[in-house]
């Protein structure tokens, strides 16, 4: 479950412009990295151009999945991941990143922006954080924790059942003990009361 790239583009009337990109190519061969990066950049550009605003899309691209979301104001985000990554989390991430980008960087600089002119370092941070969707996405995290809690509770209930059985045992034993001690008392009283010498 890996994320490879997270790009923000601006979809102009004729073509798309890269605004900010971040890549995580550690899983690739050192020599392949350059070409893979270029390939991903162009794929994201093409896809954003092909996507009409506003829309979400998840496209199968070779052995990767491209999740793209173009907003109504022509700001688009592309996330390239593998097949296992849950698309819901991907789109949540893209939406979040785009919202933050929109608030931080004024819309006027979008059509003319380029990689160097725009400063948005959080992109790399997000890409790194969301490598593990379980931790990053709130809903997934909650669900996982709940499942864990459920398992723990099941174990607890089994333990309580065992405890019940043991308590049953103890009850029986204590009853036996009580009966025998009563008999003991009676015997003792009998020996005391009846014969004076014996």
């Amino acid at each position, binding site marked *: 479950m890996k994320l490879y790239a997270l790009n923000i583009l601006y979809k102009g009337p004729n073509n798309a412009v890269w605004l900010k990109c971040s890549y995580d190519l550690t899983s690739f061969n050192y020599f392949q990295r350059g070409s893979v990066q270029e390939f991903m950049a162009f794929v994201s550009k093409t896809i954003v151009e092909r996507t009409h605003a506003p829309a979400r899309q998840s496209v199968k691209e070779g052995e990767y999945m491209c999740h793209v979301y173009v907003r109504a104001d022509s700001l688009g985000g592309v996330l390239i991941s593998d097949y296992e990554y849950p698309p819901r989390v991907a789109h949540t991430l893209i939406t979040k990143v785009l919202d933050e980008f929109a608030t931080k960087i004024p819309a006027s600089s979008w059509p003319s922006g380029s990689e160097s002119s725009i400063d948005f370092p959080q992109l790399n941070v997000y890409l790194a954080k969301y490598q593990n969707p379980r931790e990053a996405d709130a809903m997934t995290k909650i669900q996982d924790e709940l499942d864990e809690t459920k398992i723990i509770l099941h174990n607890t209930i089994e333990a309580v059942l065992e405890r019940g059985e043991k308590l049953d045992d103890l009850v029986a034993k*204590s009853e036996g003990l009580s009966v025998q001690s009563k008999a*003991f008392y009676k015997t003792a009283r009998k020996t005391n009361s009846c014969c004076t010498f014996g």
Partner: protein
Amino acid sequence: MTARRRRGTSESDQTPLIVASGVSHSVDAWSYQKDPNAYRTYISNNESENSRLFVDDTVSKSFEKVNVPTMTSRDRTAEFANAVRSLQGQHVTRAVAFKDARKAKYIQSYAEFMVIARTIGKNISSTYTKLEKLTLLAKRKSLFNDRPSEIQELTYIIKEDLNSLNQQIARLQDVARLQRQKQQNGHHLLSHSSSVVLALQSKLASMSTEFKQVLEVRTENLKQQKTRRDQFSQGPLSSSLPPSAISGHHQGSVLLAEEQVTVNMEPNSQMMPVVQKQVMVADETESYIQSRAETMQNIESTIVELGGIFQQLAHMVKEQEEMVERIDANLSDTELNVESAHGEILKYFQSVTSNRWLMIKVFAVLIVFFIFFVLFLA
């Protein structure tokens, strides 16, 4: 006299048939009972085949077991009388057979009661079949095959039936009470009638509870269908969604897409994939939203489940607390017993130790006596 009257009223449908056979006898209902012979002569008087056949047909219609005679007229009086008696039910003959007028009255009133109870029972069974049909209909969960008009009709009919059954049972109860007041019926008859009324009432009550359950199931299903329909048709969850998703239907977004495509005047090769992509995009947005909704629902249901598990856990611990208290009580009893037994043994020990002095004293006296004896003898 009442028996005779009843016989007459049941035979009223017979008289027009005979009258319409063309013979201008002014046939009177009473004449049958008073004079069976008149009937026989009446039949033998009919020479014409048509009337004979007609009479025979009417006779055969009323008595199904009888063969249709073809040639001469037959004397069917005895069979006629038997059929009349069987239609009235055996209680009348029994009433007539009994010399005791009081018993006859009991049995007749009891018979009325039983007739009403029988009709009520038949109505209950028919209403029950209707209720089963309604249950089957209400259990269907498909979105499109639902037949609300039928279900409503059936519901209405069943409600009416339940009301009328209620009234009938109330009337039956009144009849029973009247009988009890008017004549002192036998103790067994009274108890039997009350138990019959009780059984009918309980059947009616169980049917009405089932009816209520079916209605509840139906409302639940309606709610579920509504939510499913809403999920399929629209689903705006967050304000940042594109307006096409908010507008709702697939149709809307596809039309929008086509408009955009024609206005943009893109090359033809791109139109088809763009349109397709648009359709897919509409699906994507909705599927994304749907998956989010599903996840939320899962989370909610998990939380609810967890709540239930916690409650069960607490309940079980509470139950076990009882057992712990029992163990405690047993152990304290044991301690008490052991303490008292210990005390007893201590007392015994004391007595034994003190006893020794007594023993020595007794022995001393014995030895004195022995010495005395020996001295005396020797």
